[in-house]
Protein backbone atom coordinates (compact mmCIF):
# COMPACT_ATOMS: atom_id res chain seq x y z
CA UNK A 1 0.00 0.00 0.00
CA UNK A 2 1.49 3.35 -1.02
CA UNK A 3 1.23 6.18 1.46
CA UNK A 4 -1.11 9.01 0.51
CA UNK A 5 0.18 11.12 3.37
CA UNK A 6 3.57 10.84 4.99
CA UNK A 7 4.56 13.13 7.84
CA UNK A 8 8.07 12.91 9.25
CA UNK A 9 9.54 14.63 12.28
CA UNK A 10 7.10 17.50 12.17
CA UNK A 11 7.96 20.23 14.67
CA UNK A 12 5.90 23.39 14.85
CA UNK A 13 5.81 26.42 17.08
CA UNK A 14 3.27 29.11 17.77
CA UNK A 15 5.46 32.07 18.59
CA UNK A 16 8.00 30.44 20.87
CA UNK A 17 5.59 27.81 22.21
CA UNK A 18 6.14 24.28 20.97
CA UNK A 19 2.89 22.90 19.55
CA UNK A 20 3.83 19.73 17.68
CA UNK A 21 6.81 17.74 18.85
CA UNK A 22 8.37 15.38 16.29
CA UNK A 23 5.08 14.09 14.91
CA UNK A 24 5.20 11.25 12.41
CA UNK A 25 2.16 9.96 10.60
CA UNK A 26 1.37 7.81 7.61
CA UNK A 27 -1.98 7.45 5.90
CA UNK A 28 -2.36 4.73 3.33
CA UNK A 29 -4.19 5.03 0.05
CA UNK A 30 -7.92 4.48 0.56
CA UNK A 31 -7.53 4.54 4.32
CA UNK A 32 -9.61 6.48 6.83
CA UNK A 33 -7.31 7.91 9.48
CA UNK A 34 -8.86 9.55 12.50
CA UNK A 35 -6.76 12.04 14.43
CA UNK A 36 -8.02 12.17 17.99
CA UNK A 37 -7.10 14.19 21.00
CA UNK A 38 -8.48 16.58 23.53
CA UNK A 39 -8.58 20.35 23.28
CA UNK A 40 -5.10 21.78 23.01
CA UNK A 41 -3.60 18.47 21.93
CA UNK A 42 -2.41 20.01 18.66
CA UNK A 43 -4.77 18.14 16.36
CA UNK A 44 -6.12 21.29 14.72
CA UNK A 45 -2.58 22.54 14.23
CA UNK A 46 -1.59 19.23 12.67
CA UNK A 47 -4.53 19.52 10.27
CA UNK A 48 -3.57 23.08 9.30
CA UNK A 49 -0.07 21.84 8.50
CA UNK A 50 -1.38 18.91 6.49
CA UNK A 51 -3.42 21.44 4.48
CA UNK A 52 -0.36 23.58 3.86
CA UNK A 53 -1.91 26.56 5.63
CA UNK A 54 0.97 26.99 8.09
CA UNK A 55 4.71 26.58 7.69
CA UNK A 56 6.36 24.11 10.06
CA UNK A 57 9.56 24.78 11.97
CA UNK A 58 11.06 21.57 10.66
CA UNK A 59 10.11 18.18 9.28
CA UNK A 60 8.49 17.07 6.05
CA UNK A 61 4.89 16.57 4.97
CA UNK A 62 4.38 14.53 1.82
CA UNK A 63 0.96 14.52 0.20
CA UNK A 64 0.63 12.08 -2.72
CA UNK A 65 4.42 11.91 -2.84
CA UNK A 66 4.92 15.68 -2.98
CA UNK A 67 6.67 17.39 -0.07
CA UNK A 68 4.52 20.45 0.58
CA UNK A 69 7.13 22.11 2.76
CA UNK A 70 9.38 22.53 -0.27
CA UNK A 71 6.84 22.56 -3.12
CA UNK A 72 6.71 25.56 -5.44
CA UNK A 73 3.53 27.62 -5.77
CA UNK A 74 2.69 25.93 -9.06
CA UNK A 75 3.23 22.42 -7.63
CA UNK A 76 1.11 23.33 -4.63
CA UNK A 77 -1.61 24.64 -6.90
CA UNK A 78 -1.65 21.41 -8.87
CA UNK A 79 -1.75 19.40 -5.65
CA UNK A 80 -4.69 21.40 -4.32
CA UNK A 81 -6.86 20.07 -7.14
CA UNK A 82 -6.46 16.67 -5.55
CA UNK A 83 -7.37 17.81 -2.06
CA UNK A 84 -10.79 18.43 -0.60
CA UNK A 85 -11.39 19.98 2.79
CA UNK A 86 -14.52 20.25 4.86
CA UNK A 87 -14.00 22.82 7.60
CA UNK A 88 -15.52 22.66 11.04
CA UNK A 89 -18.01 25.47 10.48
CA UNK A 90 -18.44 24.63 6.80
CA UNK A 91 -16.73 27.83 5.61
CA UNK A 92 -19.31 28.22 2.87
CA UNK A 93 -19.27 31.62 1.20
CA UNK A 94 -22.24 33.51 2.59
CA UNK A 95 -22.82 35.61 -0.50
CA UNK A 96 -23.18 32.60 -2.82
CA UNK A 97 -25.91 30.00 -3.06
CA UNK A 98 -25.10 26.43 -2.08
CA UNK A 99 -24.84 25.42 -5.75
CA UNK A 100 -22.45 28.29 -6.52
CA UNK A 101 -20.37 27.32 -3.50
CA UNK A 102 -20.06 23.76 -4.77
CA UNK A 103 -19.31 24.98 -8.30
CA UNK A 104 -16.53 27.34 -7.20
CA UNK A 105 -13.60 24.87 -7.39
CA UNK A 106 -14.78 23.76 -10.84
CA UNK A 107 -15.05 27.35 -11.98
CA UNK A 108 -11.53 28.18 -10.81
CA UNK A 109 -9.78 24.98 -11.84
CA UNK A 110 -11.54 23.84 -15.01
CA UNK A 111 -12.76 25.38 -18.23
CA UNK A 112 -16.02 23.49 -18.39
CA UNK A 113 -19.12 25.29 -19.56
CA UNK A 114 -21.60 26.61 -17.03
CA UNK A 115 -24.17 23.88 -17.68
CA UNK A 116 -21.70 21.03 -17.18
CA UNK A 117 -20.37 22.55 -13.97
CA UNK A 118 -23.90 22.97 -12.63
CA UNK A 119 -24.72 19.34 -13.42
CA UNK A 120 -21.54 18.09 -11.74
CA UNK A 121 -22.24 20.21 -8.67
CA UNK A 122 -25.84 18.98 -8.49
CA UNK A 123 -24.59 15.39 -8.69
CA UNK A 124 -22.42 15.98 -5.62
CA UNK A 125 -25.32 17.63 -3.84
CA UNK A 126 -27.32 14.46 -4.53
CA UNK A 127 -24.50 12.39 -3.02
CA UNK A 128 -24.76 14.34 0.23
CA UNK A 129 -28.60 14.27 0.13
CA UNK A 130 -29.01 17.96 -0.61
CA UNK A 131 -30.55 17.42 -4.04
CA UNK A 132 -32.81 20.27 -5.09
CA UNK A 133 -31.57 22.61 -2.36
CA UNK A 134 -28.78 24.23 -4.36
CA UNK A 135 -30.60 27.54 -4.68
CA UNK A 136 -30.58 28.16 -0.90
CA UNK A 137 -28.10 30.48 0.77
CA UNK A 138 -25.83 29.02 3.49
CA UNK A 139 -27.66 31.13 6.09
CA UNK A 140 -30.83 29.21 5.28
CA UNK A 141 -29.30 25.81 6.07
CA UNK A 142 -29.24 23.85 9.33
CA UNK A 143 -25.96 22.81 10.96
CA UNK A 144 -26.02 19.32 9.46
CA UNK A 145 -26.91 20.64 6.02
CA UNK A 146 -24.02 23.10 6.14
CA UNK A 147 -21.57 20.26 6.88
CA UNK A 148 -22.99 18.22 4.03
CA UNK A 149 -22.85 21.17 1.64
CA UNK A 150 -19.24 21.76 2.66
CA UNK A 151 -18.55 18.09 2.00
CA UNK A 152 -20.13 18.37 -1.45
CA UNK A 153 -17.82 21.29 -2.21
CA UNK A 154 -14.84 19.34 -0.89
CA UNK A 155 -15.48 16.37 -3.21
CA UNK A 156 -16.64 18.19 -6.33
CA UNK A 157 -13.21 17.84 -7.97
CA UNK A 158 -13.09 14.12 -7.06
CA UNK A 159 -10.02 14.59 -4.88
CA UNK A 160 -7.70 11.78 -3.87
CA UNK A 161 -7.34 13.25 -0.38
CA UNK A 162 -10.21 14.38 1.79
CA UNK A 163 -9.79 16.21 5.08
CA UNK A 164 -12.65 16.55 7.50
CA UNK A 165 -12.45 18.81 10.54
CA UNK A 166 -14.76 17.84 13.42
CA UNK A 167 -17.61 16.32 11.40
CA UNK A 168 -19.81 15.76 14.45
CA UNK A 169 -19.17 19.00 16.34
CA UNK A 170 -22.41 20.75 17.15
CA UNK A 171 -24.64 18.12 15.55
CA UNK A 172 -27.23 15.86 17.14
CA UNK A 173 -26.33 12.15 17.33
CA UNK A 174 -28.57 11.10 14.44
CA UNK A 175 -27.25 13.70 12.00
CA UNK A 176 -23.74 12.97 13.14
CA UNK A 177 -24.25 9.22 12.51
CA UNK A 178 -25.54 10.04 9.02
CA UNK A 179 -22.37 11.99 8.32
CA UNK A 180 -20.28 9.04 9.47
CA UNK A 181 -22.15 6.80 7.02
CA UNK A 182 -21.53 9.35 4.31
CA UNK A 183 -17.79 9.37 4.97
CA UNK A 184 -17.66 5.58 4.75
CA UNK A 185 -19.71 5.63 1.56
CA UNK A 186 -17.37 8.17 -0.01
CA UNK A 187 -14.30 6.13 0.76
CA UNK A 188 -15.86 2.98 -0.66
CA UNK A 189 -17.28 4.55 -3.80
CA UNK A 190 -14.51 7.01 -4.64
CA UNK A 191 -11.47 5.34 -3.06
CA UNK A 192 -10.36 8.48 -1.32
CA UNK A 193 -7.84 8.64 1.48
CA UNK A 194 -9.59 10.43 4.29
CA UNK A 195 -8.25 12.22 7.35
CA UNK A 196 -10.82 13.04 10.00
CA UNK A 197 -10.00 15.21 13.00
CA UNK A 198 -12.39 14.68 15.86
CA UNK A 199 -12.76 14.32 19.59
CA UNK A 200 -15.97 12.28 19.30
CA UNK A 201 -15.16 8.73 20.34
CA UNK A 202 -18.25 7.02 18.89
CA UNK A 203 -17.73 8.61 15.52
CA UNK A 204 -14.00 7.81 15.54
CA UNK A 205 -14.52 4.13 16.35
CA UNK A 206 -17.20 3.78 13.71
CA UNK A 207 -15.35 5.19 10.73
CA UNK A 208 -11.66 4.74 11.45
CA UNK A 209 -9.37 2.20 9.83
CA UNK A 210 -6.68 3.50 12.11
CA UNK A 211 -6.60 6.09 14.85
CA UNK A 212 -3.81 8.44 15.88
CA UNK A 213 -4.07 9.81 19.40
CA UNK A 214 -2.38 13.16 20.00
CA UNK A 215 -1.66 14.58 23.41
CA UNK A 216 0.30 17.73 24.21
CA UNK A 217 1.70 17.84 20.70
CA UNK A 218 3.05 14.29 20.75
CA UNK A 219 1.65 11.16 19.21
CA UNK A 220 0.67 8.78 21.99
CA UNK A 221 -0.37 5.96 19.78
CA UNK A 222 -1.29 5.04 16.23
CA UNK A 223 -3.21 1.87 15.68
CA UNK A 224 -6.40 0.13 14.66
CA UNK A 225 -9.61 0.67 16.60
CA UNK A 226 -9.00 -2.50 18.61
CA UNK A 227 -5.42 -1.55 19.41
CA UNK A 228 -6.51 1.86 20.67
CA UNK A 229 -9.33 0.38 22.75
CA UNK A 230 -6.95 -2.10 24.36
CA UNK A 231 -4.09 0.29 24.84
CA UNK A 232 -2.51 0.25 28.25
CA UNK A 233 -1.46 3.89 27.97
CA UNK A 234 -2.92 5.86 30.85
CA UNK A 235 -3.65 9.01 28.83
CA UNK A 236 -5.36 7.04 26.07
CA UNK A 237 -7.53 5.32 28.62
CA UNK A 238 -8.29 8.69 30.26
CA UNK A 239 -9.48 9.97 26.88
CA UNK A 240 -11.54 6.86 26.20
CA UNK A 241 -13.15 6.81 29.59
CA UNK A 242 -13.58 10.59 29.85
CA UNK A 243 -11.51 10.73 33.02
CA UNK A 244 -10.13 14.11 34.05
CA UNK A 245 -6.38 14.45 33.78
CA UNK A 246 -4.44 13.34 36.83
CA UNK A 247 -1.52 15.67 36.69
CA UNK A 248 1.06 15.61 39.38
CA UNK A 249 1.40 18.96 41.04
CA UNK A 250 4.86 20.35 41.51
CA UNK A 251 4.50 22.54 44.59
CA UNK A 252 7.38 24.87 43.72
CA UNK A 253 6.27 25.42 40.15
CA UNK A 254 2.73 26.01 41.37
CA UNK A 255 3.91 28.68 43.78
CA UNK A 256 6.02 30.32 41.09
CA UNK A 257 3.04 30.50 38.73
CA UNK A 258 0.84 32.06 41.42
CA UNK A 259 3.35 34.70 42.40
CA UNK A 260 4.22 35.39 38.76
CA UNK A 261 7.91 34.92 39.58
Amino acid at each position, binding site marked *: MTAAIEVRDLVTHYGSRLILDHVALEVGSGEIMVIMGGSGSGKSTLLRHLLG*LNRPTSGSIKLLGQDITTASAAEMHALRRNMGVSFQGG*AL*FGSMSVLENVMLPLREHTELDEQTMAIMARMKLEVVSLGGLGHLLPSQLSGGMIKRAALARAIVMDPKLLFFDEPSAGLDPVVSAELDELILKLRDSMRMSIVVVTHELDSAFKIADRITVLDHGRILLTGTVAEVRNSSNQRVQDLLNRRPRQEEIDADAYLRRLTGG
Partner: protein
Amino acid sequence: MAEGARPALFVALERLGRVSVELVEEFGYYLALCVECVYWLAMGTLRRQPVRVSATVQQMVEVGLAGLPIIFMLSFAIGVMLAIQGIHTLKQFGAQTQVVLGIALSVTREFGPLMTGIVVAGRSGSSLAARIGTMSINQEIDALRVMGINPVRYLVAPVMVAMLIMMPLMALFADFAALFGGALFCKLELGLSYRAFWDQTVNFLAVDDIMQGLAKSVVFALVVALVGVSNGFSVTGGADGLGRATTRAVVLSISYIVLTDMFFTYFLNRG
Protein backbone atom coordinates in the same frame (compact mmCIF):
# COMPACT_ATOMS: atom_id res chain seq x y z
CA MET B 1 13.10 57.67 42.87
CA ALA B 2 15.90 57.11 40.42
CA GLU B 3 15.11 53.45 40.44
CA GLY B 4 11.48 54.20 39.65
CA ALA B 5 12.31 56.64 36.85
CA ARG B 6 14.57 54.35 34.88
CA PRO B 7 12.04 51.60 34.29
CA ALA B 8 9.40 54.21 33.36
CA LEU B 9 11.74 55.59 30.71
CA PHE B 10 12.51 52.10 29.52
CA VAL B 11 8.84 51.26 29.33
CA ALA B 12 8.14 54.38 27.28
CA LEU B 13 11.09 53.66 24.99
CA GLU B 14 10.04 50.07 24.60
CA ARG B 15 6.52 51.15 23.70
CA LEU B 16 7.85 53.64 21.18
CA GLY B 17 10.04 50.94 19.67
CA ARG B 18 7.16 48.51 19.50
CA VAL B 19 4.83 51.02 17.85
CA SER B 20 7.52 51.93 15.32
CA VAL B 21 8.10 48.30 14.44
CA GLU B 22 4.36 47.75 14.08
CA LEU B 23 4.07 50.78 11.84
CA VAL B 24 6.91 49.64 9.60
CA GLU B 25 5.40 46.16 9.54
CA GLU B 26 2.00 47.54 8.55
CA PHE B 27 3.42 49.64 5.71
CA GLY B 28 5.45 46.66 4.58
CA TYR B 29 2.23 44.66 4.49
CA TYR B 30 0.50 47.35 2.40
CA LEU B 31 3.38 47.30 -0.03
CA ALA B 32 3.36 43.50 -0.24
CA LEU B 33 -0.39 43.51 -0.89
CA CYS B 34 0.10 46.08 -3.63
CA VAL B 35 2.84 44.07 -5.29
CA GLU B 36 0.81 40.86 -5.08
CA CYS B 37 -2.22 42.57 -6.64
CA VAL B 38 -0.13 43.86 -9.51
CA TYR B 39 1.37 40.40 -9.95
CA TRP B 40 -2.03 38.72 -10.23
CA LEU B 41 -3.38 41.42 -12.53
CA ALA B 42 -0.39 41.00 -14.82
CA MET B 43 0.24 37.26 -14.58
CA GLY B 44 -3.13 35.84 -13.52
CA THR B 45 -4.32 34.97 -17.00
CA LEU B 46 -0.98 33.37 -17.82
CA ARG B 47 -1.18 31.19 -14.71
CA ARG B 48 -4.80 30.39 -15.54
CA GLN B 49 -5.97 32.20 -12.43
CA PRO B 50 -7.31 35.45 -13.84
CA VAL B 51 -8.69 38.32 -11.83
CA ARG B 52 -12.39 38.05 -12.67
CA VAL B 53 -13.97 40.91 -14.60
CA SER B 54 -17.38 40.07 -13.14
CA ALA B 55 -16.10 40.39 -9.56
CA THR B 56 -14.45 43.71 -10.46
CA VAL B 57 -17.64 45.08 -12.01
CA GLN B 58 -19.61 44.00 -8.97
CA GLN B 59 -17.17 45.85 -6.73
CA MET B 60 -17.35 48.91 -8.98
CA VAL B 61 -21.10 48.98 -8.50
CA GLU B 62 -20.77 48.55 -4.73
CA VAL B 63 -17.99 51.10 -4.30
CA GLY B 64 -19.18 53.59 -6.88
CA LEU B 65 -22.78 53.62 -7.98
CA ALA B 66 -24.22 52.89 -4.57
CA GLY B 67 -22.25 55.77 -3.07
CA LEU B 68 -23.27 58.42 -5.60
CA PRO B 69 -26.36 59.82 -3.80
CA ILE B 70 -24.50 60.50 -0.57
CA ILE B 71 -21.53 61.96 -2.43
CA PHE B 72 -23.85 64.23 -4.37
CA MET B 73 -25.54 65.43 -1.21
CA LEU B 74 -22.35 66.14 0.74
CA SER B 75 -20.49 67.73 -2.16
CA PHE B 76 -23.47 69.90 -2.99
CA ALA B 77 -23.53 71.09 0.62
CA ILE B 78 -19.78 71.81 0.52
CA GLY B 79 -20.30 73.87 -2.64
CA VAL B 80 -23.02 75.90 -0.96
CA MET B 81 -20.88 76.45 2.14
CA LEU B 82 -17.87 77.55 0.07
CA ALA B 83 -20.12 80.04 -1.70
CA ILE B 84 -21.49 81.39 1.57
CA GLN B 85 -18.06 81.77 3.14
CA GLY B 86 -16.51 83.09 -0.05
CA ILE B 87 -19.14 85.77 -0.54
CA HIS B 88 -18.93 86.71 3.12
CA THR B 89 -15.15 87.12 2.95
CA LEU B 90 -14.97 88.86 -0.41
CA LYS B 91 -17.76 91.26 0.47
CA GLN B 92 -15.29 93.02 2.72
CA PHE B 93 -13.29 93.98 -0.37
CA GLY B 94 -16.37 94.51 -2.48
CA ALA B 95 -15.24 91.66 -4.69
CA GLN B 96 -18.10 89.17 -4.26
CA THR B 97 -18.15 88.35 -7.95
CA GLN B 98 -14.71 86.82 -7.65
CA VAL B 99 -16.20 84.07 -5.50
CA VAL B 100 -16.46 81.75 -8.51
CA LEU B 101 -12.68 81.53 -8.74
CA GLY B 102 -12.44 80.49 -5.09
CA ILE B 103 -15.15 77.89 -5.40
CA ALA B 104 -13.84 76.44 -8.65
CA LEU B 105 -10.28 76.07 -7.42
CA SER B 106 -10.97 74.74 -3.93
CA VAL B 107 -13.59 72.28 -5.17
CA THR B 108 -11.54 70.72 -7.94
CA ARG B 109 -8.18 70.80 -6.20
CA GLU B 110 -9.33 69.91 -2.73
CA PHE B 111 -12.87 69.32 -1.61
CA GLY B 112 -14.22 67.12 -4.39
CA PRO B 113 -11.56 64.41 -4.03
CA LEU B 114 -11.33 64.78 -0.25
CA MET B 115 -15.06 64.43 0.29
CA THR B 116 -15.15 61.43 -2.02
CA GLY B 117 -12.24 59.82 -0.21
CA ILE B 118 -13.86 60.27 3.18
CA VAL B 119 -17.24 58.95 2.05
CA VAL B 120 -15.69 55.93 0.34
CA ALA B 121 -13.53 55.25 3.40
CA GLY B 122 -16.62 55.33 5.59
CA ARG B 123 -18.76 53.22 3.28
CA SER B 124 -16.46 50.84 1.47
CA GLY B 125 -13.42 50.79 3.76
CA SER B 126 -15.50 49.60 6.68
CA SER B 127 -17.53 47.10 4.68
CA LEU B 128 -14.33 45.74 3.14
CA ALA B 129 -12.74 45.21 6.55
CA ALA B 130 -15.94 43.67 7.91
CA ARG B 131 -16.41 41.36 4.93
CA ILE B 132 -12.85 40.06 4.83
CA GLY B 133 -12.76 39.89 8.63
CA THR B 134 -15.91 37.77 8.77
CA MET B 135 -14.55 35.50 6.06
CA SER B 136 -11.36 35.15 8.04
CA ILE B 137 -13.20 34.20 11.24
CA ASN B 138 -15.42 31.71 9.37
CA GLN B 139 -12.35 30.04 7.84
CA GLU B 140 -13.55 31.11 4.39
CA ILE B 141 -10.11 32.54 3.63
CA ASP B 142 -8.58 29.17 4.58
CA ALA B 143 -11.19 27.48 2.40
CA LEU B 144 -10.13 29.63 -0.55
CA ARG B 145 -6.48 28.79 0.03
CA VAL B 146 -7.03 25.04 0.24
CA MET B 147 -9.07 25.22 -2.94
CA GLY B 148 -6.01 26.74 -4.58
CA ILE B 149 -7.70 30.11 -4.95
CA ASN B 150 -5.33 32.87 -3.93
CA PRO B 151 -7.28 35.23 -1.63
CA VAL B 152 -5.42 38.30 -2.87
CA ARG B 153 -6.25 37.46 -6.46
CA TYR B 154 -9.85 36.51 -5.70
CA LEU B 155 -10.81 39.10 -3.08
CA VAL B 156 -8.33 41.96 -3.09
CA ALA B 157 -7.40 42.57 -6.74
CA PRO B 158 -11.01 43.19 -7.88
CA VAL B 159 -11.52 45.68 -5.04
CA MET B 160 -8.27 47.44 -5.84
CA VAL B 161 -9.10 47.81 -9.52
CA ALA B 162 -12.65 48.90 -8.75
CA MET B 163 -11.43 51.55 -6.32
CA LEU B 164 -8.77 52.85 -8.70
CA ILE B 165 -11.32 53.23 -11.49
CA MET B 166 -14.26 54.49 -9.47
CA MET B 167 -12.61 56.91 -7.05
CA PRO B 168 -11.44 59.43 -9.71
CA LEU B 169 -14.78 59.16 -11.52
CA MET B 170 -16.60 59.79 -8.26
CA ALA B 171 -14.27 62.69 -7.44
CA LEU B 172 -15.16 64.21 -10.81
CA PHE B 173 -18.82 63.70 -10.02
CA ALA B 174 -18.28 65.34 -6.62
CA ASP B 175 -16.61 68.30 -8.39
CA PHE B 176 -19.71 68.84 -10.50
CA ALA B 177 -22.06 68.42 -7.55
CA ALA B 178 -20.13 70.98 -5.48
CA LEU B 179 -19.91 73.42 -8.37
CA PHE B 180 -23.64 73.05 -8.82
CA GLY B 181 -24.17 73.84 -5.12
CA GLY B 182 -21.96 76.91 -5.43
CA ALA B 183 -23.68 78.05 -8.61
CA LEU B 184 -27.10 77.68 -7.04
CA PHE B 185 -26.17 79.82 -4.05
CA CYS B 186 -24.47 82.45 -6.23
CA LYS B 187 -27.61 82.67 -8.34
CA LEU B 188 -29.79 83.20 -5.28
CA GLU B 189 -27.41 85.59 -3.50
CA LEU B 190 -25.70 87.50 -6.30
CA GLY B 191 -28.11 86.92 -9.15
CA LEU B 192 -25.28 85.29 -11.11
CA SER B 193 -26.70 83.09 -13.86
CA TYR B 194 -25.66 79.42 -14.15
CA ARG B 195 -24.31 80.23 -17.57
CA ALA B 196 -22.08 83.01 -16.21
CA PHE B 197 -20.92 80.81 -13.31
CA TRP B 198 -20.04 78.01 -15.67
CA ASP B 199 -18.26 80.30 -18.15
CA GLN B 200 -16.17 81.83 -15.39
CA THR B 201 -15.36 78.41 -13.97
CA VAL B 202 -14.21 77.07 -17.33
CA ASN B 203 -12.23 80.25 -17.85
CA PHE B 204 -10.39 80.06 -14.54
CA LEU B 205 -9.73 76.37 -14.33
CA ALA B 206 -6.72 74.81 -15.94
CA VAL B 207 -6.60 71.11 -16.78
CA ASP B 208 -3.92 70.92 -14.12
CA ASP B 209 -6.34 71.88 -11.37
CA ILE B 210 -8.66 69.02 -12.17
CA MET B 211 -5.81 66.56 -12.71
CA GLN B 212 -4.35 67.47 -9.35
CA GLY B 213 -7.63 66.51 -7.70
CA LEU B 214 -7.91 63.29 -9.68
CA ALA B 215 -4.33 62.30 -8.90
CA LYS B 216 -5.12 62.68 -5.22
CA SER B 217 -8.21 60.54 -5.56
CA VAL B 218 -6.12 57.74 -7.06
CA VAL B 219 -3.91 57.80 -3.96
CA PHE B 220 -7.01 57.85 -1.73
CA ALA B 221 -8.32 54.80 -3.58
CA LEU B 222 -5.14 52.91 -2.77
CA VAL B 223 -5.29 54.01 0.87
CA VAL B 224 -8.91 52.91 1.40
CA ALA B 225 -8.44 49.56 -0.33
CA LEU B 226 -5.16 48.67 1.40
CA VAL B 227 -6.19 49.77 4.88
CA GLY B 228 -9.60 48.09 4.62
CA VAL B 229 -8.24 44.83 3.30
CA SER B 230 -5.27 44.56 5.66
CA ASN B 231 -7.44 45.26 8.71
CA GLY B 232 -9.89 42.63 7.51
CA PHE B 233 -7.15 40.01 7.12
CA SER B 234 -5.75 40.78 10.56
CA VAL B 235 -9.01 40.12 12.44
CA THR B 236 -8.62 37.75 15.35
CA GLY B 237 -10.85 36.97 18.27
CA GLY B 238 -14.42 36.90 16.99
CA ALA B 239 -16.98 39.68 17.06
CA ASP B 240 -14.91 41.93 19.30
CA GLY B 241 -11.93 41.81 16.99
CA LEU B 242 -14.18 42.36 13.99
CA GLY B 243 -15.63 45.53 15.51
CA ARG B 244 -12.17 46.81 16.36
CA ALA B 245 -10.82 46.10 12.89
CA THR B 246 -13.75 47.83 11.20
CA THR B 247 -13.40 50.94 13.34
CA ARG B 248 -9.66 50.94 12.87
CA ALA B 249 -10.02 50.65 9.10
CA VAL B 250 -12.26 53.71 8.92
CA VAL B 251 -10.30 55.87 11.36
CA LEU B 252 -6.94 54.96 9.81
CA SER B 253 -8.02 55.43 6.23
CA ILE B 254 -9.62 58.81 6.92
CA SER B 255 -6.49 59.89 8.82
CA TYR B 256 -4.19 58.69 6.04
CA ILE B 257 -6.37 60.40 3.46
CA VAL B 258 -6.21 63.77 5.21
CA LEU B 259 -2.47 63.44 5.87
CA THR B 260 -1.55 62.36 2.35
CA ASP B 261 -3.77 65.13 1.08
CA MET B 262 -1.75 67.65 3.05
CA PHE B 263 1.59 66.35 1.77
CA PHE B 264 0.30 66.07 -1.76
CA THR B 265 -1.02 69.62 -1.71
CA TYR B 266 2.24 70.91 -0.30
CA PHE B 267 4.45 69.22 -2.86
CA LEU B 268 2.21 69.91 -5.83
CA ASN B 269 2.07 73.62 -5.03
CA ARG B 270 5.71 74.33 -4.32
CA GLY B 271 6.69 75.29 -7.82
